[in-house]
């Protein structure tokens, strides 16, 4: 068994034993079920309010009453809150996962033992990354399964094959989004000697990616960015926002993730009417940016781990 596989399996084993894996899995499953519940309740209630409004308007003698805007949206939209939960909670937990992966070895003194084994620092890093990927894939995979099964069990939450495919692509996209933050957590755990600074810096970057960049690109306030209905709204017109979109838009991976995900989960009539191929084609540059961001982070980790030296500060903070 190669050293990379040994390290990867060890990584997963430790996550299991520390119950971190189960905690993360539990959180993701709860997020999915909460999202579905809220989506269903909100949709049902809004439809009832719409019907009551129509009744009121008809009594007042109104004509040409618009149809229910929610009726055209697929059952998949009931999952749209998952976008926000993965965007917020998932990414932060991914940072913690990446951070702990390396800090654990440093704090326990095991890092010295590993680096005096006939394995290179690169092998150690690759093994850890492989382990983190395995853990994340399992979590995402189980969450996807729970989404599909919970929908199948609810008679009025009817998913067709197209919906399941969209859901699959959404979770695949979410995997890469989470992977970026896990690598970010790992990167600063390697780079920074202080354990708390190694956590705080990625959290700052997370705030920038989750709130600042999308805010500048879309003109929206932080709380508006968390509403799955309004999160992908087009920015107001004007030179400032045009410039922001031109220069910051391409690197705003949080914005790319939420807007791509919103389209996949049928957040608007236009998105519903566009087929999957069309949505994928429209968002190809966003996917490429996200993957590029992951690759950059991985590259930086590679570069840092190559010249990593164990210091006295590695045992005690």
């Amino acid at each position, binding site marked *: 068994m190669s050293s990379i596989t040994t390290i990867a399996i060890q990584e997963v084993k430790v996550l299991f034993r520390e119950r971190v894996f189960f905690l993360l899995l539990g959180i993701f499953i709860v997020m999915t079920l909460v999202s579905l519940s809220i989506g269903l309740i909100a949709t049902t209630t809004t439809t009832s309010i719409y019907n009551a409004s*129509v009744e009121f308007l008809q009594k007042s003698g109104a004509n040409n009453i618009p149809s229910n805007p929610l009726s055209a949206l697929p059952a998949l939209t009931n999952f749209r809150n998952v976008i926000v939960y993965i965007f*917020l909670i998932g990414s932060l937990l991914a940072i913690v996962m990446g951070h702990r992966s390396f800090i654990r070895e440093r704090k326990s003194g095991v890092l010295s033992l590993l680096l005096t084994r006939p394995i290179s620092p690169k092998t150690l890093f690759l093994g850890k990354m492989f382990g983190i990927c395995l853990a994340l894939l399992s979590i995402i995979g189980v969450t996807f399964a729970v989404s599909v099964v919970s929908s199948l069990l609810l008679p009025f939450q009817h998913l067709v094959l197209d919906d399941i495919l969209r859901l699959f692509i959404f979770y695949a996209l979410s995997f890469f989004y989470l992977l970026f933050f896990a690598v970010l957590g790992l990167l600063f755990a390697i780079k920074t000697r202080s354990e708390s600074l190694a956590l705080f810096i990625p959290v700052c970057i997370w705030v920038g990616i989750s709130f600042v960049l999308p805010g500048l690109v879309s003109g929206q306030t932080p709380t508006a960015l968390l509403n799955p*209905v309004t999160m992908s709204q087009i920015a107001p017109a004007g030179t400032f926002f045009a410039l922001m979109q031109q220069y910051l838009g391409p690197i705003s991976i949080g914005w790319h993730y939420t807007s791509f995900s919103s389209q996949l989960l049928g957040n608007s009539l236009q998105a519903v009417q566009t087929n999957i191929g069309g949505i994928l084609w429209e968002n190809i540059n966003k996917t490429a940016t996200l993957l590029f961001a992951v690759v950059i982070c991985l590259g930086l980790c590679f570069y840092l781990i190559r010249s990593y030296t164990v210091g006295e500060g590695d045992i005690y903070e």
Partner: protein
Amino acid sequence: MSNIAKIWAVATKEYTDALKNKVFLVFLFFLLFLISVSIVVASFDFESKVAVYQNALIKLKQSGQVVENLSEPQFFPLQLLRGAIEYLEIIGAILAIVLGYLSIAREKGNNTLQLILTRPISRLSFYIGKFLGNALLLISVSGIVFVGITFVVEVIGKTILTGPQLFRILLTGGFTIIYLLIFFSISALLSILMKSLPNALIVSFVIWILFVLIIPQIGDTMDPDNQVPGGLFNSLHIEKANQLLILEKFSRYEKTRDSLEQTSLAKHYERLAFALLGIKDTYNGKSLGFIFHDKIGDVWWISLASIFFGIAGGAVFVKKQMLWKEE
């Protein structure tokens, strides 16, 4: 040395230690940067609304149509602070969490607690000193933020704020401090209670996400008017009075939604601040008396929570036999 002098010695050390801490300074500058950016973005947003209005006006005039029904966007300078308040609510809370964590981690990690408590100072006095030092720090931070905000609004809005407007900003600053002290106390409490400091920090972040972001988001998402871009009632052209009439039949749903939002202290702070600054149109131009009467619940929530967690932190610190050195 009197007890008060000892408490003051602890408080001043706490204040200066935080100012030397890189993590705290990073978050502070980050917060100031975000707030400035949000005001700039809000002003550009307003300018674009004005531009849209003016274009619409020109087109209507050119086509000979009536323009009386078109209302010009009104400029209320304090409404530019919407994003700033939200960043204080979100990022300010992280800053407070960082302070609470560092305050305890400093002693726990360095083994200095034994040295201090073998001096003639009680645990309670020591904790009060720490709390006071950090409260003064948050007052300073709040002061810098709100003076900065005032300056930026005046420059970008090209306006001089009036006395009453400045007073409202001062009040909002005061409630901001009370709100931030909640998160400071929660973070300190967890750092005292939990064996592992990094785990205490992670749990603090999880609480922050839940009560500052997720619960308000759920409440917001459950709002029927937020299910459709632009609002459901707007799309049906139903006026406010009639909206309330229709919603009467759904009062239980609304109560559930509201109860959920009530659990979020961030939401209370936001509602209060938006009302004081006239960010929410319903309170724009209303007297302070009216606002306090309407928002008294929010005032009580954040004040009592701040007192509760502050006392809880002190009580736990006094009682708990902490591990002197983190394993």
